[in-house]
């Protein structure tokens, strides 16, 4: 068993920042990550980092913009923390050598971004995320922080009290991908989840193949509630065959969108008579999909983004990387042909519920980055606000886990008695774990119940249902044993269904039904499909019998996380009958502030999803944010 003060799960921007912070506070910290840190998807971020570091700008303007962008579903303490800490953290990155773009006077450059009242997006070329990731990894190397790379964390070692708020996290179980070894990692102080996005729930996404939402799903099953999962951001211009992002810059420079009939639909069909192609992400995404659904899409799949009229000179000067992207990933020459684009999943606003210190309701379990939801983005994330979230809340989680006193948090975690519970959500099928009565009692692929009612394989809690006060070592050890049983079961199982088939089915249904457009019928259809997949997953097996670099096994374990998260997204979307931010409902075309100024919370509750609501905090340090119409 490995043992450290602080364990950071994930080596992306959030994880690296957390590890450095904990290390600076003197903790013995280790990063456990399924990809080598520099392979994390933070490297894909292009645009920049919002930080109020210039005269004329201030943190409260940043906070205000963020609150407005969130459509008043962000929590003020979180948003204000973000806006206050971001300048310091950003300058810190500069001090660590990050190669920011520069002004003539040698100071870092900033540029305007959608929804910002000041050009405060600090950037490093068109590859800000890459530089941020590498700069922080360099600092990790400098400090000699231990990295267990290509270790897949598959289970949290959490105690078993009835109320999740009484539980404690003692560590994790991880699988050494190269050798197939399963080992326990004990954390003396805390475990920080920084496992990133969940884009693989959809079949068309700008996210990496590794973005399977593992951390959020594991925390969810361990008892930490998920918050605002229905809010998924879709980006309007992604390449159809890969999901690679074509930056808003193309439209900013004057690129136009047209449909198969050659019509400039943003105007011709009145989606945005003023802004046209430059309307906000959600508006453009919906317009494109409407075109496609009404049969005016190309190959029934995409529309065209054309920049040829800008001329070769201007294109190579300002949009050169777009030419490379279209060429390399779609085989299209942007100078000669229009580029095919369609909306793609881009970002998950929701995640594991945390407070400003990154704490979940489970003692010793933290979350930061895209897998967490402190709630700075509310129902819609502004461009350039995710990277500051990584460094601000990553650092705070790291410090707190290392034992630094950050004061009393203003955001509460866990389910309080006074919260409103959703009892009449009409679901076509029972959500949650499958009760398994099957012949094999010792292990079930997705961790359904054993016949005796106790839960085994994926139950993150230590002792399979019996309440016992166990030592931290025992909790980890038992989690390791359970995991070994599950993996053994999956590898030794001889026949059944394979994950690839299930994954495809799940992703298709989510893209079909829980996409930019949502309606009750579709959402219910999705729940049925998810149920079907979940039941089929009971019979999943791993074809590759090898212990060496068994990606088949890893994908199979990830699949379970995708199922749980897909279900959480869909349940939230079904419950929220209003149109707010990224969440659009056909039957409910307006924002309902009287009813819905609240977070959708989902607790696993031993396999039965429990949906409840938590009020939004609009009271800031100095002022209260009044919900206004969100128009730009």
């Amino acid at each position, binding site marked *: 068993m490995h043992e450290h003060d602080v364990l950071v799960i994930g080596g992306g921007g959030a994880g690296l920042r957390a590890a450095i912070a904990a290390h600076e506070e003197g903790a013995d910290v280790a990063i456990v990550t399924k990809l080598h840190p520099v392979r994390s998807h933070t490297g894909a971020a292009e645009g920049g980092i919002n930080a109020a570091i210039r005269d004329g700008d201030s943190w409260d303007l940043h906070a205000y913009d963020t609150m407005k962008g969130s459509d008043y579903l962000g929590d003020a303490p979180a948003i204000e923390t973000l806006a206050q800490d971001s300048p310091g953290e950003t300058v810190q990155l500069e001090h660590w050598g990050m*190669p920011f773009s520069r002004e003539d006077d040698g100071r870092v450059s900033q540029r305007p971004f959608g929804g910002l009242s000041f050009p405060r997006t600090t950037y490093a070329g068109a590859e800000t995320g*890459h530089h941020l990731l590498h700069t922080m990894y360099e600092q990790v190397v*400098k400090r000699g922080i231990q990295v267990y790379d290509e270790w897949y964390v598959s289970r949290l070692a959490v105690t078993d009290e009835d109320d999740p708020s009484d539980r404690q996290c003692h560590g994790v179980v991880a699988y050494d991908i190269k050798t197939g070894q399963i080992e326990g990692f004990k954390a003396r102080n805390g475990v920080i989840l920084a496992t990133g996005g969940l884009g693989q729930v959809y079949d068309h996404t700008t996210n*990496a*193949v590794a973005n399977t939402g593992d951390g959020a799903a594991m925390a969810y099953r361990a008892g930490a509630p998920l918050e605002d999962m229905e809010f998924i951001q879709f980006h309007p211009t992604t390449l159809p065959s*890969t999901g690679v992002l074509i930056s808003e810059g193309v439209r900013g420079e004057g690129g136009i969108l047209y449909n198969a009939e050659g019509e400039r639909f943003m105007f011709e069909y009145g989606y945005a008579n003023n802004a046209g192609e430059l309307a906000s992400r959600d508006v453009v995404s919906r317009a494109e999909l409407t075109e496609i659904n009404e049969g005016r899409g190309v190959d029934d799949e995409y529309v065209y983004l054309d920049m040829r009229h800008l001329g070769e000179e201007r294109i190579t000067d300002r949009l050169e990387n777009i030419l490379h*992207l279209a060429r390399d990933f779609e085989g299209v020459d942007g100078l000669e042909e229009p580029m095919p684009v369609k909306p793609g999943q881009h970002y998950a606003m929701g995640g594991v519920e945390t407070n400003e210190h990154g704490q979940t309701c489970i003692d010793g379990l933290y979350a930061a980055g895209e897998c967490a939801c402190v709630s700075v983005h509310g129902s819609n994330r502004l461009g350039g606000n995710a990277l500051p979230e990584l460094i601000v809340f990553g650092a705070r989680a790291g410090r707190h886990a290392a034992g630094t006193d950050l004061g009393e948090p203003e955001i509460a975690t866990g389910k309080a008695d006074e919260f409103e519970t959703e009892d009449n959500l009409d679901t076509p099928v029972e959500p949650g774990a499958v009760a398994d009565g099957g012949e094999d009692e010792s292990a079930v692929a997705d961790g359904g119940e054993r016949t005796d009612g106790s839960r085994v394989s994926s139950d993150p809690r230590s002792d399979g249902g019996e309440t016992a006060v166990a030592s931290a070592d025992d909790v980890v050890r038992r989690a390791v044993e359970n995991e070994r049983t599950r993996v053994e079961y999956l590898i*030794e199982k001889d026949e059944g269904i394979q994950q690839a088939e299930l994954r495809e089915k799940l992703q298709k249904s989510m893209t079909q039904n829980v996409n930019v457009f949502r309606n009750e019928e579709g959402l219910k259809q999705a729940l049925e499909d998810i149920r079907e997949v979940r039941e089929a997953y009971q019979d999943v097996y791993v074809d590759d019998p090898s212990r060496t670099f068994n990606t088949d096994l890893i994908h199979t374990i990830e699949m379970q996380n995708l199922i749980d998260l897909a279900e959480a997204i869909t349940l939230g979307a079904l419950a929220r009958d209003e149109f707010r931010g990224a969440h659009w409902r056909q039957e409910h075309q307006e924002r309902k502030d009287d009813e819905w100024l609240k977070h959708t919370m989902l607790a696993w509750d031993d396999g039965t999803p429990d949906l409840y609501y938590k009020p939004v905090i609009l009271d800031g340090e100095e002022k209260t944010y009044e919900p206004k119409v969100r128009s730009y």
Partner: protein
Amino acid sequence: MSTQIQEEADEPTETEAETAPAERQSPGDRRRAEKRTASDQAVGSEPVGRADDDTFRLKVFRYDPEVEGKMEPRFDDFYVPREKGMTVLDALIYARDHYDTTLTFRHSCRQAVCGSDAFFVNGRQRLGCQTQISDLEAPIRVEPLPHQDVVKDLVVDMEHFYDQMHAVEPFFQEDDLPSGDLEEQRQSRENREKIKMSTRCIWCGACMSSCNIAAGDNEYLGPAAINKAYRFAMDDREGDDLKQHRLNIMDQEHGVWRCQTQFSCTNVCPKDIPLTEHIQELKREAVKQNLKFW
């Protein structure tokens, strides 16, 4: 002591196992053996998938130290349907998801930023996700990166590469920072421009794999690590002392001097980093630094 007791306790089971090997064999063991027979038959027999006008042949290197039929490396052939915009990575994913789920390779971002899918495709180091099928001649042959130990199928051991990267003190270490609150260091546009290309490295290892010198001399830092050193040595934000320190690291026997300007690193780098140029500049800098005192 306690471990000894455990071992004793374990023993009876082992002897049992020996006496009844047939029963002990788990389905996994059986399948590991079966894969061998299946693949023995596969050798020289029909490839997987259908050969017709809409498909192309993908030859993939296979090796697994544990599965019997794969212990001897071999090539498997798959016929993959051609699609517009399809990349080598897409083709591999197709082959894996439709024909053989045991096909193993690293990949993540699908957009040339994570650097995990550098393979040897038709005789050249390339990123799978960045290489269009339509630009290649069929059959398309995909092998793991040369000069690296193969872990399984297309997965190579990157440890050595990481060690070399870490060996050049790849981190900013200027301590003399502006003291003012939120005060950043100044850097001229020209200087940022100078290091720009060198900061684009995604640690894919293609360059190192293509360099014959790196293949022959394991201690050679290699183009990627030298480029990393260049990135810091040329960054004006680090003072002169640090620059000298960095040049001293480059000036080691297995540093820049090993480079024989083969240019293959520059040719294969998916991020178009002018590696040879950077290495040469460091050589000149090192000579200049040493000559100063003569």
